[in-house]
């Protein structure tokens, strides 16, 4: 039996109320859902909330799951929506306001000098982690989510589009903007400019 066939059988059993099958699905996907929740929420408490809400929704809605996408993609979509909803509530700001904070149109116009090879070896790991977290935190959620799903979690453009229910073109645009913004922020936060070695000029 292929993985897909065994997964379909498992889902079917879970849809019929088989608790063992449900437990197997929860065991199978909880680690990955927790990981993406943690990357989005950046703290354990909120990540646990997202994890629990995601699987409560799975229990309640599993009978409506038609298998148009994989259960994995479906769970990611639920988790991402729950997380983004929480982030919006937390920040208490409208999405459009956070999008306006960054002038994306000007990012690609910045002049960037070449970076030296093996850049990562020049940074203190803790300092770099802080810089990255700060830069990621400043990125509006809709851009950060795409960057996390594509570049950190390794999802394809198509899968990311399915998870976020946006077009593939939109994924590409958001990803490009997120990468450019992070590139500039990393250079800035690491005070590369002042050293005159690399970064903005």
């Amino acid at each position: 039996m292929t993985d897909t066939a065994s997964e379909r059988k498992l889902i079917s059993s879970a849809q019929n109320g088989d608790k063992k099958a449900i437990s197997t699905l929860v065991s199978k996907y909880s680690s990955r859902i927790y990981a993406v929740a943690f990357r989005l929420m950046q703290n354990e408490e909120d990540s646990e909330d997202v994890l629990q809400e995601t699987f409560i929704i799975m229990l309640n809605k599993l009978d409506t799951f038609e298998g148009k996408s994989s259960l994995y993609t479906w769970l990611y979509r639920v988790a991402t929506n729950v997380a983004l909803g929480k982030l919006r509530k937390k920040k208490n700001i409208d999405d459009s306001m956070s999008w306006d904070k960054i002038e994306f149109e000007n990012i690609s116009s910045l002049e960037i000098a070449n970076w030296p090879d093996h850049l990562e070896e020049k940074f203190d790991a803790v300092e770099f982690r802080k810089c990255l977290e700060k830069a990621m935190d400043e990125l509006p959620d809709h851009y950060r989510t795409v960057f996390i799903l594509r570049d950190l979690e390794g999802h394809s453009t198509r899968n990311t589009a399915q998870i976020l229910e946006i077009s593939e073109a939109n994924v590409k645009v958001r990803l490009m903007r997120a990468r450019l913004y992070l590139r500039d922020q990393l250079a800035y936060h690491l005070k590369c400019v002042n050293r005159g070695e690399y970064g903005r000029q």
Partner: protein
Amino acid sequence: MVDNNKKLSDILNNKLSDDIDNNMVQEIVDYIKKCEDCKMDIDTIQQTIKLARTGDFEVLIPKEVSKRLFEVLGLDIE
């Protein structure tokens, strides 16, 4: 440099809504080959992704979080 970046950015943006065919890929590759600034731009973006992956860490679900999840769902831990 700004003009070159803008031109590359325009090419990419204009074509992002469509599937990029082989001719367009070749056009972009040819353009980048001739554009030192574009190569630098792409290099630094690639390094950013690499750095982000290096700085990223494996997130593991804590045992107690997993235990509480199963409790909340009314399920037995496998």
